[in-house]
């Protein structure tokens, strides 16, 4: 396992000077993920926070081949880029044995909602790429609308909290299981606080031939209305309350849970940490807190049971 000191010696491929909000988790995720492979990287970046904040005209924060795509076709563009590189190799313009890694980055809007078709298609074709989703659970770049990654009860600009609605009424989409159902070689869920785990998973994702999917929780202090200095701490709280379990699924079936909290904390602690959930702490909204806890318990039990099932097999 690599130490942080060794990691710091590696070259930064995503440099300072970007315009992300103070306390944003995306640069932390990139700092870890971009250091995991020695091969040259090509990045296809869906529109979103990362794209708009890292390439503010005329500057760019990237030190690698990077292309901006629309929200819904980042993975499709990557298929085209791969075809370009294999053509260049055929034409003799690139050495045939040159290893190039392809990384697609998208936010939760580009992954859960509008980009799902394109990613699903690329995974079905078995393209060799890594998809990294920074999941901040809403459309932060366009002003904080709800997405299908938004958890139940969260107040966003299109699912506000008030006398009529207690925030979003639907639970979030379980995207990792959707991609696992494509039976791709590697699906993993991680968070920036557990950097060793994220590094290991990104390394594994780059090593696998065929599509790999990484779903990383990204703290968003501006839209979650949480203090900027607590953003990494909040992601740990998400793992301790089992709201954001840390696990990996190989070949669509072999589930491994990489982090099990010693003491599973009640979900109210996670809700208290962000002001987007404050309305849930009122007495009249108790029912939705109970529902969230039930939902979280159900998902956690399902995860543990599927891990045990594949152990006994």
């Amino acid at each position, binding site marked *: 396992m690599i130490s942080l000191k060794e990691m*710091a010696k590696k070259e930064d491929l995503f440099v300072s000077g970007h315009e992300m909000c103070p306390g944003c988790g995306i640069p*932390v995720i990139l700092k870890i993920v971009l250091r995991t492979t020695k091969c040259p990287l090509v990045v296809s970046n869906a529109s979103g926070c990362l794209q708009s904040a890292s390439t503010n005209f*005329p*500057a760019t924060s*990237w030190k690698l081949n990077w292309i901006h795509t629309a929200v819904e076709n980042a993975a499709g563009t990557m298929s085209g880029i791969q075809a370009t590189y294999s053509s260049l190799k055929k034409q003799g313009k690139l050495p045939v044995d040159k290893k190039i890694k392809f990384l697609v980055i998208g936010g939760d809007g580009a992954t859960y909602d509008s980009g799902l078709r394109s990613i699903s298609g690329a995974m079905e074709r078995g393209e060799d790429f890594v998809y990294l989703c920074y999941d901040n659970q809403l459309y932060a770049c366009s002003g904080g609308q709800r997405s299908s990654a938004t958890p139940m009860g969260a107040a966003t600009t299109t699912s506000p909290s008030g006398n009529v609605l207690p925030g979003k009424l639907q639970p979030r989409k379980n995207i990792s299981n959707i991609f696992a159902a494509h039976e791709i070689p590697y699906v993993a869920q991680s968070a920036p606080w557990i950097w060793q785990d994220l590094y290991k998973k990104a390394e594994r994702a780059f090593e696998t031939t065929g599509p790999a999917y990484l779903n990383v929780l990204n703290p968003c202090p501006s839209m979650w209305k949480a203090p900027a200095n607590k953003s990494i701490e909040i992601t740990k709280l998400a793992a301790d309350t089992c709201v954001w379990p840390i696990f990996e699924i190989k070949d669509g079936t072999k589930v491994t849970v990489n982090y099990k909290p010693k003491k599973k904390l009640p979900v109210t602690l996670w809700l208290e940490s962000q002001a987007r959930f404050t309305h849930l702490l009122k007495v009249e909204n108790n029912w939705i807190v109970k529902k969230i806890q039930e939902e979280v318990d159900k998902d956690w039990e399902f995860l543990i049971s599927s891990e045990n099932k594949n152990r006994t097999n």
Partner: protein
Amino acid sequence: MSLKNWNELTMGGVNLEPGSSLKNFTASYRSGQKPVFNPDNCINCFFCWVFCPESAIIVDREKITGINYDYCKGCGICENECPVKKNPKPILMVEEIVEL
């Protein structure tokens, strides 16, 4: 940063200067608080380095040596994630007074 004229741009708007955002000093994002580094009690765990979103922690020969105030946005993650319990903490957020 001076902007280019339309006829000075590259074909297709391709940016040929990797990492050019280093010219873009983001220190103006700081709102009243800045971290101050004190090497005395630092255990060089590098937690501040890995969790700093701005890559503003300066590392020299496997040691943390300071903070780059050109890019630091003053979020305070470094102070919050610092595991040292001894006083004074290696990284402390202090009030920043900007003279105009």
